[in-house]
């Protein structure tokens, strides 16, 4: 069973986000970039499936600028077997990403696609669901537990009221949530080994799919800042102020 794991290169989650002065976007120049944390969880899950003998091969794929090769090397160091970069300088929308991934699925014929439920830059939470739709595959989103047996996956999902378990026929798309696993750190020997693992590069245009943008970004702005309030003396002062000043009790 082959597992395909799409990963995205994003602004590192520890870096302070700065909006460009001209309102054209978020400043990414000379910033630390890393693998989307949800995608790290997806890679970890795929590698564990391989370690358990359920999966035979883990293929990581990224779509983006040439530097996304670094992100793929991280995936390889965590245990993916090989990687594919679909190169594009354009900032692709989830619909375009899903269409390119559909083309990759046609080539690679994976049994499962596992990916993060959302990327922490665009926060769209869309690619997995869209890929499943385009492939006419079932989807199991926001996974907090995945069990694969035979031609079925049983997935426990994080939903608003608690946890929901569904069963999907394979092939399927699974998007992962925070509590699925704790991703490993790549060891130095594995980082060295990852340099020798195969990493193919293809141009997005070579897939011949429509990746023209549908959304035009008119502006990017900083949200209104909430101003800091006051430190109160003690619990009595707090209750008094909540009642008389804020009027919320």
């Amino acid at each position: 069973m082959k597992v395909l794991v799409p990963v995205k290169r994003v602004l590192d989650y520890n870096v302070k986000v700065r909006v460009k002065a001209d309102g054209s976007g978020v400043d990414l120049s000379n910033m630390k970039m890393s693998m989307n944390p949800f995608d790290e969880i997806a890679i970890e899950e795929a590698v564990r499936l391989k370690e358990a003998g359920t999966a035979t091969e883990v293929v990581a794929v990224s779509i983006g600028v040439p530097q996304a090769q670094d992100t793929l090397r991280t995936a390889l160091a965590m245990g993916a077997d090989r990687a594919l970069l679909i190169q594009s300088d354009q900032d692709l929308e989830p619909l375009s990403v899903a269409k390119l991934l559909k083309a990759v699925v046609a080539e690679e014929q994976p049994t499962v696609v596992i990916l993060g439920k959302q990327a922490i830059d665009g926060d769209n939470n869309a690619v997995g669901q869209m890929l499943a739709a385009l492939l006419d595959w079932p989807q199991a989103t926001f996974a907090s537990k995945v069990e694969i047996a035979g031609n079925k996956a049983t997935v426990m999902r994080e939903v608003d009221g608690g946890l929901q378990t569904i069963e999907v026929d394979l092939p399927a798309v699974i998007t992962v949530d925070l509590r699925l696993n704790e991703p490993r750190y790549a060891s130095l020997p594995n980082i060295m080994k990852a340099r020798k693992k195969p990493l193919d590069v293809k141009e997005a245009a070579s897939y011949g799919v429509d990746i023209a943008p549908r959304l035009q970004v008119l502006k990017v702005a900083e949200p209104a800042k909430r101003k800091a309030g006051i430190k109160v003396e003690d619990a009595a002062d707090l209750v008094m102020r909540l009642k008389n000043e804020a009027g919320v009790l």
Partner: protein
Amino acid sequence: MAVLIIADHDNHAVRDTTHKSVTAAAGLSGDIDILVLGQGARAAADAAAKITGVRKVLLAESPALGAMVAEAVEAVVLPLMAGYDALLTPATSAGKNVAPRIAAKLDVAPISDIVEVIDASTFTRPIYAGNALETIKSSDAKKVITVRPTVFAAAAEGGSAAVEVVSAAGDAGKSRFVSEETVKSARPELGAARIIVSGGRAMGSADEFKAVLEPLADMLGAAIGASRAAVDAGYAPNDFQVGQTGKVVAPDLYIAIGISGAIQHLAGMKDSKVIVAINKDPDAPIFQVADYGLVGDYKTLVPQFSAELQKMGN
């Protein structure tokens, strides 16, 4: 132009996220229909029909729709979209699950988590955990949108739209509902609560989390929330999580106890009307957004706070 809204409901009533989505939809069009998907959801459909500004309510019922299985939802919604220019749904876990799937089938770019409707094609939405707001214009003929409910006012009630039953013939195909573990609680739901008390990693254990937060929540009639750190550590269930990747809330009063205020937590609660922080670290980032900060150990401060509340006769 007509808009279809997938309702958020519990079979008996519609949640106010639905009313808020009606307000958002009114920025696109005056012709607003609500689709209630469920099993035994007639009462919810009748409730939806009372929302002011709703033209009609469509009701589709099946066991798979009761569990909001994405493939079953798609089978009902997709054919209906021939008659609509936009599909809206509150950005709940069910809404986020189904909206992009339907968008892909319609070959349109979904627009997630909008916080402002500028015109029928232009919307503002948070990116980077709410650290930036992007305004985007869609060139798609049909729009598929999830709505962040906390920022829109709830549409009033007083309407009397007709309820029409539509076919739920399509099945979920390759996807089946197995089971659901929902937390039964007498407390209000996080998304709808007027007051939320929230705990962080400082609690140190699940027992301590309960012992500190539950009595206070019950005294205030509040819902209980948690930081991601507290959920990851197993002190609180996942559906308590407030933050960028959990629930986004905006109650009248949000009380953060032992929560440092990581960016991703702030993204989920900074629109609350009044924020109280109780934390022993005076430099914790939570104090930068709190209206009222109380510095000290929650172990002494929370009992004092409860005692003062009781004195006030709350």
